[in-house]
């Protein structure tokens, strides 16, 4: 097991390095630097600015400094658009908000999806099963950017129950719609995966044995069927996590939560590459870390896996 984890880390590290270097490379080959503007700056001013941001250094040195800065000091460098803020400030300001509702959505999607999926599988071919299958099939086509406006139209403008945006320190009223919008299509996907995998498990021979020896049905499901049936869901958690991270950009923009997504989109519109790269690398790092955890969890759950 330890050897397996170490091997997985050895794959994860180059992934991160490739990501950082790829982003940095893209920034270099992009036409037009961050300081090209309609009115050309005097050459001396430009030289000063470039020296301030280290852009006068040779390319390999810039790349190396950037990499070392991130790895050793967790420092993503200065922002190109805001003189008084660096990328770390922007991340530190928005990231806790995004992380809060992101994690809640992730947990909600996983638990709700697994719950509905197991319920539908146990009540196979009853009305509950049919409703679950039908609803989740359509709900898969409801991504966050469709759910968010629909929710706001219904709950804010028609019913007036919930605030249409803002954060307010993370009070629950402000969390409800972001979490629903972000998790709907993943509740649907996880439900479908859980249902079909549970159905398959319940048909296998060790479950027949468990039933034959007279175990009550709830014990059959929870003690025997649950663990093997969970495996496909666990391997789907990695993609779900990535989707939550990506989707949070829409939530941050649409609900004005003050999260990091707003800063990301603004930086994209301002061509503030430093912030874009910082956010991309941060999210990439989180993804790699999470995939590592998922793989370890999978190895722990599945005794058949080869280390």
């Amino acid at each position, binding site marked *: 097991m330890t050897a397996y984890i170490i091997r997985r880390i050895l*794959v994860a590290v180059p992934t991160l390095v490739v990501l950082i270097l*790829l982003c940095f490379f893209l920034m270099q080959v992009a036409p037009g630097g961050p300081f090209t503007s309609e009115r050309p700056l005097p050459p001396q001013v430009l030289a000063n600015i470039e020296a301030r941001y280290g852009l006068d250094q040779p390319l390999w040195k810039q790349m190396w400094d950037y990499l070392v800065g991130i790895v050793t000091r967790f420092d993503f460098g200065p922002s190109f658009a805001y003189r008084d803020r660096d990328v770390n400030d922007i991340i530190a300001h928005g990231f806790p908000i995004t992380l809060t509702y992101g994690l809640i959505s992730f947990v909600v999607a996983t638990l709700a999806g697994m719950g509905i999926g197991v319920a539908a599988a146990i009540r196979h071919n009853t009305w509950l099963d049919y409703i679950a299958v039908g609803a989740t099939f359509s709900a898969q086509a409801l991504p966050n950017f469709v759910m968010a406006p629909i929710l706001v139209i219904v709950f804010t403008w028609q019913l007036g129950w919930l605030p249409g945006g803002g954060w307010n320190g993370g009070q629950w009223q402000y969390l409800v719609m972001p979490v629903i919008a972000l998790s709907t299509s993943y509740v649907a996907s996880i439900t479908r995966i859980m249902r079909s995998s549970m159905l398959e498990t319940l048909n296998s021979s060790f479950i027949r044995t468990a039933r034959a020896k007279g175990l009550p049905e709830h014990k059959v499901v929870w003690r025997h069927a649950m663990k093997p049936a969970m495996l496909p869901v666990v391997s789907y958690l990695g993609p779900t996590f990535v989707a939550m991270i990506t989707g949070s950009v829409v939530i941050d923009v649409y609900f004005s939560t003050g999260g990091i997504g707003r800063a990301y989109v603004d930086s994209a519109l301002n*061509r503030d590459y430093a912030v874009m790269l910082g956010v991309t690398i941060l999210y990439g790092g989180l993804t790699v870390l999470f995939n590592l955890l998922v793989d370890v969890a999978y190895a722990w759950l599945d005794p058949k896996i080869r280390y």
Partner: protein
Amino acid sequence: MLGSIRRYGTEMVHRTEQSERIIEALVEGEAIRGRSLWEDARRRFFRNNAAVGALICLGLVMLFTIVGPLFSQWSIEEIDWARMGNIAGEGHPSVESGHYFGLDGLGRDLYARTIQATRTSLIVGVIGAFVAVVIGTLYGAFAGFVGGWVDNIMMRTVDVLISIPYMFIIILLMVMFERSFFMLFVGIGIVSWLDMSRIVRGQTLSLKNREFVEAATTAGVGRFTIILRHIVPNLLGIVVVYATLLVPLMILVESFISFLGLGVQEPNTSLGALISEGAGTVIYGTPWQIACPIFFFLVTIISLFFVGDGLRDALDPKDR
């Protein structure tokens, strides 16, 4: 089929003359025409009502994007100055003003814009799937067939690329170069083939030790010819299924990006951009501005899901 063989069998005892002919016919492969995988799949697919219904819906949407512009009285960028001052009052969908879907927030014709947006989405989806099929299939088949360290390096590369949050890379590409259709296709092309290559590689691994590949090798067929002529045709079923399921995913990616305002630039538009605009203006009493794009978005995506699901049931050998 069994029944007919048995019948032939009993007749054979009585009429040797005819049996000769039947045996000859059997040898020639005429008497019992085998049903191919594709014929089987087509029959199974058309027995699936939901999938056929979805296919019809999808056909109608496509037809609409082709025929629709003929009836359009406005272009995507023309502003109806006469009505733009009072969009909530006069910009609603109506036949007599020529704005069948009403006006958008800037006084442009939503009918023309919805058609253009839907067409954008469909083209993006198809191109993404096409790139995935071409690159992913060749890459995966090559890695799986050659095996060894080549396979190892190729698949580790995919592992690295696949764990990067690709949405951010596409946005990065579009922002840094230009926000055009071309860059969008490049960005989507870069990411869409990764999953496909993994699936194809897995299938190739199970195919490459089969007898027909051995036979081809014995006959002296070269490696690349084997991949193209013997491995790839046998992968087609699974490739078609995953390509169909990929189309809606690519549409989702594109709509996501354009919802954020980072997609193709005005006056070109896309369903994500229209949904975003409509969501921003619905408070002024213009519900059609969000209803039209969401309707077309949902019909397209849900139909594609159903068609893909039907194809999987029809073609995937696992579920037989």
